[in-house]
């Protein structure tokens, strides 16, 4: 076992049973995170990135269920833990912040009390916990924290709420913070503040960050490594510079070219023909092959495996000499 890895997800599979059939939301995803690393899972809606994040927390809601694979936190498989031990892991070792900070904070409790509540979970006396809560709010750049701690969530702006949420989540010094679209509801200047804050917390505490986003701009801004998901599969992963500058998988390549980086009159954007397949009826073979400009005979029959070529990169595409998936 590789003890250096903080989180090691292998062959994670999640399905949703619906009236119309089985939705294969996550089909065999594997990735790793080191201490202090920022890993971004990026993809378009329906690619399974959020479900993957929830699976790591073991919070996949019914009718979804984790079919198999393993999620190892410092070597211990979370999927084998009983519910009580998993509750200990959540918040203490892995914490999570969500897209909409308004609904994640309880509207009837004061901001400070909610942070205090989280700290009390670690057997800290109440007065001490309040003092630490106010201190934490200051550290997530809430101006006048002693006063703001007494505010209710609706009295705070969206950016403040997300910072309070972040403060609450890091209050117990987790090893891993999962942020699911943490800035999607926020303005760009506020987004920049929140992203700066996440990086600063990472630097100070050494926690790892798993960012779930659809926004390649955010990925470019803070990720160390990137995993690109498509239709429930991780099609490519690697260091952020490689992914942006030399994408290997045809999907990543097309996605990068669809970004509006030009100004008016410099030509039209590249588009990806076709549509994302239904997760109920995935095409055989590589899920991207019906839309792929470089498809070959084998692509429509056998699913490519994810190989580990040099430079910490992985890609699931036959173009790069990958074998079939086992």
């Amino acid at each position, binding site marked *: 076992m590789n003890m250096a890895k903080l989180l090691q997800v292998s062959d994670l599979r999640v399905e*949703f049973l*619906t*009236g*119309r059939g089985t*939705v294969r*939301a996550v089909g065999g995803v594997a990735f790793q995170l080191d201490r202090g690393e920022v890993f971004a899972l990026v993809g378009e*809606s*329906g*690619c*399974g*990135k*959020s*479900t993957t994040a*929830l699976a790591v927390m073991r919070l996949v*809601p019914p*009718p*979804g269920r984790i079919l198999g694979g393993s999620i190892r936190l410092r070597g211990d498989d979370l999927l084998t833990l009983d519910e009580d031990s998993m509750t200990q892991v959540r918040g203490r070792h892995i914490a999570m912040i*969500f*897209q909409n900070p308004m609904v994640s904070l309880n509207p009837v409790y004061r901001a400070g009390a909610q942070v205090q509540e989280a700290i009390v979970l670690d057997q800290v006396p109440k007065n001490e916990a309040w003092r630490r809560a106010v201190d934490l709010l200051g550290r997530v750049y809430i101006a006048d924290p002693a006063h703001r701690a007494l505010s209710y969530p609706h009295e705070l702006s969206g950016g403040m709420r997300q910072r309070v949420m972040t403060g609450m989540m890091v209050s117990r010094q987790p090893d891993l913070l999962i942020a*699911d*679209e943490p800035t*999607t509801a926020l303005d760009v200047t506020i987004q920049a503040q929140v992203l700066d804050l996440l990086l600063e917390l990472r630097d100070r505490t050494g926690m790892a960050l798993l960012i779930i986003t659809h926004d390649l701009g955010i990925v470019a801004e803070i990720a160390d490594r990137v995993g690109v998901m498509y239709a429930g599969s991780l099609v490519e992963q690697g260091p952020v510079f490689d992914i942006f500058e030399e994408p290997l998988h045809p999907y990543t390549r097309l996605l990068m070219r669809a970004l509006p980086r030009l100004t008016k009159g410099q030509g039209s954007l590249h588009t990806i023909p076709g549509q*994302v397949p*239904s*997760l*109920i009826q995935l095409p055989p073979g590589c899920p991207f092959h019906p839309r792929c400009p470089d498809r070959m005979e084998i692509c429509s029959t056998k699913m490519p495996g994810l190989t580990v070529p040099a430079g910490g990169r992985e890609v699931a595409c036959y173009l790069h000499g990958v074998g079939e998936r086992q």
Partner: protein
Amino acid sequence: MKLELAQREVNGSRNARSWRTILLGNGQLMAGVFIFALVMAVALFADGLALRPYDAMDLGNRLQPPGTGGPLGTDQFGRDLFSRVVYGSRIALRVGLIVVTIETVLGVTMGLFAGYYGGWVDRVIASVTDVTWALPPIVLALAIVTALGPSLNNVIIAIALVSWAGYARLIRTKTQGLKNMPFVEAARALGESDLSIMFRYILPNTFGLVIVLATLSLPGAILSTTALSFLGLGSQPPAPDWGVILNEGIRHLYDAPWISVFPGLAIVCTALGFNLLGEGLRDVLDPRMKV
């Protein structure tokens, strides 16, 4: 965005599921549909089901208990109680449907106008609905019937007048939500008239709510009319109105309790059936309404 497509697929499949699956998955709705169908069948085929005309007296067979004097016994004039209760279903359903139609039309229109225009229109309609809500409906209906004179038609008018307010409120809230939707804004930008926006764009999107409201208010309408008939303000004897029969049975509660018990049971069953139906429909059509 939490569950992304997976969740969307789940929602999508909800629409696509057949009616049979929805029915079987919802016990309430199934029971409601069953009772509703039963009451409708009884009302439709009353002529075939009834053993005798509802007003045929047989003074030699007065106050016979169930069994000996017909399936449900006879009343103080020797009329067959089963036949009277069967025919009574027609009155109950007719009254219920008329009341519900009037209050739906009135309530939905008022709600649409109040919600769409807001401002003084809303304030006027809101004060009327508030006043109606502040008074106990039966007392208000009593006052109206006393003023108009006792008759079934007057009862229908009275009940409809006191009960549209609830509709108006809910439709108003729904309209307020819908009128800020982009498709309504787009309609305004196209130059649609206010009436066209209300009836072409907003109204069709309240149908789910209206069906649920109508079904849920039907038992109330039936209960209120039978109550007023029981008090002698609605249908007049010898009409086989359940309220009238109940009233007549009161005098013989000790020696012939069945006269009151069976119309009472009919009222309870019908009301229960429509409530179950309404709540079942609500779960299917407008799950967000669930408290």
